[in-house]
């Protein structure tokens, strides 16, 4: 029989056990978020925050308004949306198709393809950025190959605002597909082969097996991958920083780079940079909620 005292002791024990994790979470996640939110509505201009010579004052939402009215913010946001789209509708499907094809033994030399597809993921993003910067340079290999076929061809891909993001998106597709490929391959291997064989015996075609057996079994993984892709896309920074630095004329900038430029470039504006980071956080939550709703509506049950 559980007495009231035992229950109280139990509660205390739970609280004690949870407390370190809560404190750690508060210190490294919650506090920086709240602090960033506070900076974004202040007039902080660097230096000592508490007890400094210039007191930090509340500045309302002026930083959000200025961010909203800055056209480079919209260019960066648009580019981030492109990256989210290429991640969710490019990297994930491609990663799945490649994993499925290898898992179903549609190719020979499985080990070789597995290595080749995953290889970009183990290279430093800065190296990848510089490598592709050289490849897409107006005097680089892409230009030379094209000029071999069409003499006089000018490589204006990165200097044309309409096409400037294409090389960046291609590199992102090449670089990150391997991650989803490995996730899907590992999860495909977890599906009971007997279930697939049973479907085949019942006369299911390859497409029907995929549609009614494999995809529902992987719906949770797809959603997790989508969440990873969305959050990863919104914090894209290193690869683009190394490849284009957000240029020319900020046409390949993304929100993280825009935030970084606002905080550390030329005339540092920390409140506005924090306003950008707060927006990124909210936008990320919104996209993840949409993903969860889509999964709820269309996803299969993992049972």
């Amino acid at each position, binding site marked *: 029989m559980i007495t009231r005292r035992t229950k109280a002791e139990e509660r205390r024990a739970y609280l004690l056990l949870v407390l370190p994790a809560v404190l750690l979470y508060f210190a490294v996640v919650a506090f920086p978020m709240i602090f960033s939110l506070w900076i974004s509505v202040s007039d902080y201009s660097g230096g000592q925050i508490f007890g400094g010579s210039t007191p930090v004052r509340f500045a309302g939402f002026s930083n959000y308004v200025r961010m909203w009215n800055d056209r480079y913010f919209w260019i960066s946001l648009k580019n981030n949306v492109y990256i989210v789209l290429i991640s969710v509708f490019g990297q994930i499907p491609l990663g799945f198709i490649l994993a499925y094809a290898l898992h179903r033994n549609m190719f020979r030399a499985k080990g070789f393809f597995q290595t080749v597809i995953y290889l970009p993921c183990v290279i430093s993003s800065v190296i990848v950025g510089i490598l592709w910067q*050289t490849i897409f340079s107006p005097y680089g290999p892409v230009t030379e190959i094209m000029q071999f076929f069409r003499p006089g061809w000018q490589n204006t891909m990165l*200097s044309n*605002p309409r096409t400037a993001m294409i090389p960046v998106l291609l590199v992102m597709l090449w670089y990150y597909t391997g991650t989803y490929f490995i996730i899907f391959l590992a999860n495909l291997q977890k599906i009971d082969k007997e279930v697939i064989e049973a479907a085949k015996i019942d006369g299911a075609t390859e497409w029907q097996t995929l549609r009614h057996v494999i995809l529902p079994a992987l719906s949770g993984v797809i959603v997790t991958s989508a969440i990873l892709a969305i959050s990863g896309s919104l914090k894209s920074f290193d690869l683009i920083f190394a490849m284009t630095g957000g240029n020319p*004329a*900020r046409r390949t900038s993304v929100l993280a780079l825009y935030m*970084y430029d606002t905080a*550390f470039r030329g005339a540092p504006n920390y409140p506005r940079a924090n306003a950008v980071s707060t927006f990124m956080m909210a936008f990320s939550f919104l996209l993840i909620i949409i993903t969860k709703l889509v999964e709820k509506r269309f996803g299969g049950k993992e049972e």
Partner: protein
Amino acid sequence: MKLRKLTMWMVLLLLLVFALVPNLIAAEPITIRVLNYLDASSPGAAREITEIWQRFEEENPDILVIREDQFGEPFHHKTEAYAAAGKLPEVLYVWPGGRSATLHQKKLLKDISRLLGDERNAFIDAALEPQAGGYLAMIPIGLTASHAMYVNTALLEELGLEMPKTYEDLKAMVAPLRAAGKDCIIIGAQDDWVMQSVLYSMIFGRLVGDEKLYEFIEGKAKFTDKVFVDSLRFYEQLFIDGVINRNAMQTPYGEAPALFAAGRAPFMIDGDWRAGAFLTDESTGKALIPPEKQKKIKMTVFPAIPGEINHGTSSIVPAVGYAMSAHVPDGSPEEEAAWRLISWLNSAEVQKIRLETGAAFPTRKGVTSDKLEPLAQERAEFYGRISGTHVLDDKLPPEICIPLNIGLQEIGLGLATPLEVARNVQAAYDEWAKSNK
């Protein structure tokens, strides 16, 4: 008996003293953190590290130097991050204004006049001018022309072309160069500061001038005035005429010297510091342009621009130098150690090394070398041939300079008109002026 006891105590005391004294003498070295700007891929990098930094450490064992080398944009970002966090290193590499404006304006650097004393007489007058904070925070390690036009005279001869004297001459070269599969001028302007620093500051100096620049800064003139818009129009014309390929905006800054050395164009526009990229790297014995071919490379300035009010000018700025963070207490051992390091970095010996590697042109009087490669010699002579106007990012606050930098890229890409950029710059000025009232 008493004497024996006393002697024993004396011996023990002496032993104790002998045991402690070496420890007292070999006290912990004073730690000095340094944020240094270094292009590790430059030919002079090996000498910079071994002959300047390592040598100082060997000769000053009582100072522990913790050096952080950064280059390009990451350097500036790191500086701003340190400044924001209030954790500036004791010694740091700074610009006289421009990208280091925050450090000067917020007085985060120490006034070194007291420490410099009579040593100031060893430097040329231009090096002793106060920086953006209104006081002397550093001695520039060199003087810099942010605009220089490098000319491959061998390529011009090969193509039957002559050194252009006017803009029209230069424009006339575009067609024959294009027929030969060459560009006219190479500029690695993917980073947005490049066009403003190495080209437009010179155009502004020629067509608008320093006097008007001060009027803009004081609000007595507007950036939408015809004279400013016209200077942007001339800049735009360079792209329309094909003198500069729009691809310059997607050419990485670091790629330009290799393209110029490979003969992709007879002209390259960059800062004078780029001469160092072509010199021999002593660690490998290799040079982007070997010394025998360097004789055919000339350094000059952009040809005469129609309507210019200043003729044959470049844009000049007292160059970078080493400053001490203001948080180092006066008269402390840290100040003494940091100043010893800064004095070494400004010494005649170090300036001579930098002259030889092409890293900087000396600010100390009488520093010279008989080991100069032809292009380093050419660079030394280049200063005698030019006069200069201001580099814009040295005078304009970053709040105004950044929209100008981006605007110059937009004009080059055909994304904005000169008038639109002028309006954006004026809007940035108005906002800056309002917040600084």
